[in-house]
């Protein structure tokens, strides 16, 4: 019997536009892109030039500090443009796909999957290493480290929840293969967190992993919260995490030996005509799904990832390397007369000064309006209600703002990344940019500790 952990704090933000269990294939995109901004903790350099021909799986970027870590092209084609921003900062390498797709192939012998070194080398070679994220700091793992354990969250709890069971349906064998591979990478255990709500989950039958059941509201599905409750990260500890879909993609690679960037994402949000799941190749131009979007009234925001932690990719951008959903919501760029004083029955809020708590089954349309102005910390005990961790978030944030390394360490900077405190940012009355403060703290830690 698996251990059951009850998460008592948190918040489910009820939004309109959750994806129906219906799977299609997105049409082929005209362009694909590799974006350095998707990857944290690495300094990426280009290893292709404009006009170079690439296959799916050919390296496009490499890490300056550890050249073995590579980011590869998702499709075969020609590097069409290299977009740069201020001070020639590399923004994206845009690839025009060939009509006929060719992928890099790797020779995977029986022995290869038994040996830790060889597994890591293959993953590095094939550009799969970026799947592996290290805690603390939430950055791409260092292949030379030996993690205490590997954690995988087998369910999602963020707004517009993705059904991982549906997402991974038919890929159970790949998922199991991925787990088996990961088990070779650590001397500790591979932990898989599952939700108490679907006992019928096919992931429940996974072998070679320690299953823990979590019940409760968001962020129960965040791997950081699960780590905190299973075996918290202490100073000096290193654990690795990997997204559940990436586990299946890893398994697929070690089964077929072919690089393949195809994944399933949920296309969701109140601005999607029919929210659904679809096959898409990571890095596809967002224009390839424009037929599904309702932008008849007002501006919309395309988000790679969920509405709390995802990145704004703009309406001419590209989907990201990470993330299991694309959320499309209305922009809130309009004035509202006396909005703060109105009953606002159509607005969701965690506060009882609004009335959304009276309608626990209603879902709401939320736009991107800030709903106020930035203030100093005034209201207390607000963050604690949505952060199921033994951490005092405001004190941690203040330690980061004061750049007090010792205090940050003492207050738990090793245990959190932005996504764990995303709800704090959502509920904040003072509209404080919690996630960017946390990232600033993590960057400072990396700088000071290296």
């Amino acid at each position, binding site marked *: 019997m698996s251990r059951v952990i009850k998460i008592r704090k948190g918040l489910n933000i009820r939004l309109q536009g959750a994806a129906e269990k219906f799977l299609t294939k997105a049409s082929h995109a005209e362009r694909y892109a590799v974006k350095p901004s998707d990857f944290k903790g690495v300094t990426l350099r280009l290893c292709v030039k404009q006009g170079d021909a690439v296959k799916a799986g050919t390296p496009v970027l490499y890490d300056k500090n550890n050249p073995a870590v590579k980011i590869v092209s998702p499709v075969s084609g020609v590097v069409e443009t290299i977009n740069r921003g201020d001070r020639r900062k590399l923004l994206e390498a845009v690839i025009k796909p060939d009509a006929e797709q060719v992928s890099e192939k790797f020779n995977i012998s029986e022995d290869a999957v038994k040996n830790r070194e060889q597994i890591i080398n293959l993953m590095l070679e094939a550009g799969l290493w970026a799947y592996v994220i290290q805690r603390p700091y939430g950055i791409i793992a260092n292949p030379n480290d030996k993690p205490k354990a590997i954690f995988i969250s087998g369910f999602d709890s963020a707004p517009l929840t993705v059904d991982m069971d549906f997402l991974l349906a038919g890929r159970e064998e790949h998922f199991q293969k991925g787990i088996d591979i990961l088990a070779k990478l650590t001397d500790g255990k591979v932990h898989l967190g599952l939700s108490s709500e679907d006992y019928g989950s096919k992931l429940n039958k996974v072998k070679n992993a320690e299953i823990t059941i979590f019940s409760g509201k968001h962020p129960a599905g965040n791997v950081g919260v699960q780590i905190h409750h299973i075996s918290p990260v202490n*100073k000096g500890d290193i654990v690795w995490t990997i997204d559940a879909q990436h586990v299946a993609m890893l398994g697929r690679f070690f089964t077929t030996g072919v690089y393949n960037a195809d994944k399933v994402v949920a296309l969701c949000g109140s601005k999607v005509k029919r929210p659904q799941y679809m096959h898409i190749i990571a890095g596809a131009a967002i224009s390839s799904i424009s037929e599904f979007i309702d932008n008849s009234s007002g501006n919309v925001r395309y988000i790679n990832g969920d509405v709390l932690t995802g990145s704004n990719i703009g309406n001419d951008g590209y989907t990201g390397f990470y993330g299991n959903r694309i959320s499309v919501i209305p922009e809130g760029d*309009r*004035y509202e007369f*006396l909005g*703060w004083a109105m009953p606002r029955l159509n607005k969701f809020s965690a506060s009882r000064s609004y009335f959304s708590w009276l309608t626990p089954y209603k879902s709401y349309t939320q736009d991107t309006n800030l709903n106020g102005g930035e203030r100093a910390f005034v209201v207390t005990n607000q963050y604690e209600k949505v952060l199921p961790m*033994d951490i*005092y978030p405001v004190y941690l944030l203040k330690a980061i703002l004061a750049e007090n390394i010792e205090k940050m360490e003492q207050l738990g900077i090793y245990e959190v990344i932005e996504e764990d405190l995303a709800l704090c*940012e*959502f509920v904040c009355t003072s*509209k404080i940019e919690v996630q960017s403060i946390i990232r600033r703290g993590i960057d400072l830690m990396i700088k000071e500790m290296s």
Partner: protein
Amino acid sequence: MKFLRRFLDKIKPSFEEDRKFGKLHSTFEGFETFLFVPKTVTAQGAHIRDSIDLKRTMSVVVISLMPCLLFGMWNTGFQYFKSLGMEQTFCQYFLFGFWKILPIIVVSYVVGLGIEFAFAQVRKHEINEGFLVSGILIPLIMPVDVPLWMVAIATAFAVILGKEVFGGTGMNIWNPALLARAFVFFAYPSQMSGDKNWIADGFTGATPLSMAASGTEKLTEQLPSASDLFIGFIPGSIGETSKLAILMGACILLFTGVASWRIMFAAAVGGLGMGWIFNLLALNPYMELPPYYHLLMGGFAFGVVFMATDPVSASQTATGKLIYGLLIGILIVIIRVLNPGFPEGAMLAILLMNTFAPLIDHYVVGANIRRRMKRAKTSI
């Protein structure tokens, strides 16, 4: 409202930094954001944000103070005509109080907001909503006969030295409204001793607290009845007399979750507990007073519900709030009963605990740090 919006958009440019009315930039922005929720969208971090903001939070507090204010207006008239031995209608009581109290409120808001606007402009910040609450709290804890110039000076003192020198709302150590009360209390002791209360010219009535302090025996017989104390047919500061009105306010605050139930609950427990301990000692008549009288008399209820729960000056951790509230309750009763100089303990007890709140939090957070250190050691 399109017309208003167009008008604002038209005059907006002249309030930009280097334009004609640049010096009123923060003021304009304050009024504009009051009228319209700005069209600012999220630039980083979470793409959606809760609909709650500080304006709404503060308005909830202001609404919760309305029962106290309205009752205070009526009671002012009632006490006045009662002392003159005149029967009047409900409306006359209320109107008398209304015209007595309105100037105090106006002075408090004009002075306080004026200073806030000026500081916001100098700092190039948005105007903070904190004073919306302080501005109504200050009149409510003043005696009815307080001279208006005194209200003005006290408000200025509280806003400048109590808040702005620390960096504005959210940074202050003490509750600004209580600081205003403390200022008049110590700066003008002859008018504000707290033991006598103006009712009508040439007529002062002893408040229940001073009766209790100077009482000889059988206090419950000398004091107004518990039901009078509860409903509030007694002389006292404008907002503090009716526990019923305060209770209505408390319900709004607790229901919306704006104020901390931990502080209110712990303070009530502390007050009752200390009253009970004094009962056991029973050295003088005041000590023999039934504990629940302490909750009904003076500023205990008002202070605990509206002042102690101020999130900025209170303890910030959940455990800390319990300790903080408990100590406030205990201290109020101790100051009242044991200190002959100050009949009212609520103001001093809360200000004292405001001072110590960061210390309480320091130890609560310290315990969290020790847990983390211990865990790190055992896992090695």
